[in-house]
């Protein structure tokens, strides 16, 4: 053990939390609450899957209308399938994303509330408010990433298969890879964005508390 005694007088500023350490801590907190994290991830997963389904089906139908056989085009026009997403669909997507955001905020509020003591302790050990926010945002972003990625893949695959069940192999031959990838990126971005926004308020509220209050809070 070091026998060095802290020097008298000065108070300095340098305090750090390397990103790798922050990621390690955030990841472990998720692991320990595995089932809860899984439910949050599930909420994002289905919300983004819904978004991706609508976007993919729009893209595939558009490609079929452009490059498909006369037969398929006739079928599509007969059904009245629009290449553009309709107002109704936009409304459904918006709603599902809102549900997603509320679900994430709720999950983060819970995970913050049950950890007030831990947050207070970390601040006693020298954590800056922004470390606390960073840790919670990392947790949430990770959940958002996993959930959205899964949702994008599910939504895309499901719509491709459903289109193939109606039009045979044609959706594959005209598959609009570029626009589907683009929509996938949008959906992923939306999932991540919602996760971070949803976690912002709970994380900020937790970080602002004086350590004494945070450690008194019993849940």
């Amino acid at each position, binding site marked *: 053990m070091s026998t060095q005694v802290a020097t008298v007088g000065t108070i*300095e500023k340098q*305090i*750090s*939390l390397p990103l790798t350490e922050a990621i390690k801590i955030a990841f472990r907190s998720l692991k320990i609450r595995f089932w809860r994290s899984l439910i949050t991830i599930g909420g994002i997963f289905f919300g983004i899957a819904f978004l991706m389904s609508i976007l993919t089906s729009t893209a595939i139908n558009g490609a079929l209308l452009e490059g498909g056989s006369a037969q398929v085009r006739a079928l599509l026009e007969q059904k009245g399938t629009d290449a553009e997403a309709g107002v109704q669909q936009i409304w459904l997507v918006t709603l599902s994303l809102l549900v997603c955001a509320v679900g994430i905020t709720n999950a983060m509020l819970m995970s913050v509330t049950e950890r007030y003591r831990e947050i207070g302790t970390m601040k006693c050990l*020298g954590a800056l408010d922004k470390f606390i926010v960073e840790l919670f945002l990392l947790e949430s972003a990770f959940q958002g990433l996993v959930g959205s990625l899964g949702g994008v893949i599910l939504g895309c695959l499901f719509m491709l298969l459903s289109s193939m069940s109606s039009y045979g192999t044609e959706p594959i031959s005209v598959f609009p890879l570029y626009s589907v990838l683009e929509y996938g990126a949008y959906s992923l971005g939306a999932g991540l964005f919602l996760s971070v926004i949803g976690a912002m308020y709970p994380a900020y509220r937790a970080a602002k508390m004086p*350590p*004494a209050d945070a450690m008194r809070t019993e849940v």
Partner: protein
Amino acid sequence: MSEEQTVTAPEPKAPDQPNIVRTRGVKKIYRMGTFDLEALKGVDMEIKRGEYISIMGPSGSGKSTLFNMIGALDKPSEGKVYIDEVDVAQLDAYELAWLRCRKIGYIFQTFNLIPVMTALENVTLPMIFAGIPTDESIDKGVGLLERVGLGGRVQHKPLELSGGQQQRVAVARALANDPAIVLADEPTGNLDRKTGREIIELLRELNEENEVTIISATHDLKMLDVSDRILWVQDGKIERDQKREELDLDVGQLEHDEENTIE
């Protein structure tokens, strides 16, 4: 109790040391709906570098509130707290974090270890905040855990440790960045007598070997044996400031009383 009297009186500390903690007119008022509760009613005190101070007083007298003020864990409603003659209220967020990280080590009645981290990770966390490289912090963390007698338990999670062992981890964590002050709020409150005595003994050794200033709020009369000075808190005020030498007569009586109370 006399046969387990392993704790001996420390040498009186040099009185010419600088003040490490000083408070002036510290008040704390908690707003409780319609009325205000004045938990501290104007506390003035000085603590010298290297002293071992016990803050004694009945439950609800304001010990923990005072602990939070000295430790910069809460803001006083009125008055000033100086650490190393720096007014804590003037510090910005970074300086405050630095103070909590490097200058003060905290020990709590409820241990407050981070449950998802191992003993070693709990001890290295303050070193990570202090920017110490990982290898170095691990070496030092293991050293500290050995120092508190937990060398064989570095990879255990808090829930796999007994109360006494958890408090040892907390002591090691409090020492991680070689603080000038160790603040303890009833460190023996959740421990049995023997374990409590071991923790007190450990704190005393730190005080003597590393010249760490120890400030401990406590009900535990065993603490009196090792303290240089006792601040008696009553109803939000310091009622008596007593040096150890002035205490001997009273202690005999108090310990006698303690033996007769059933815990």
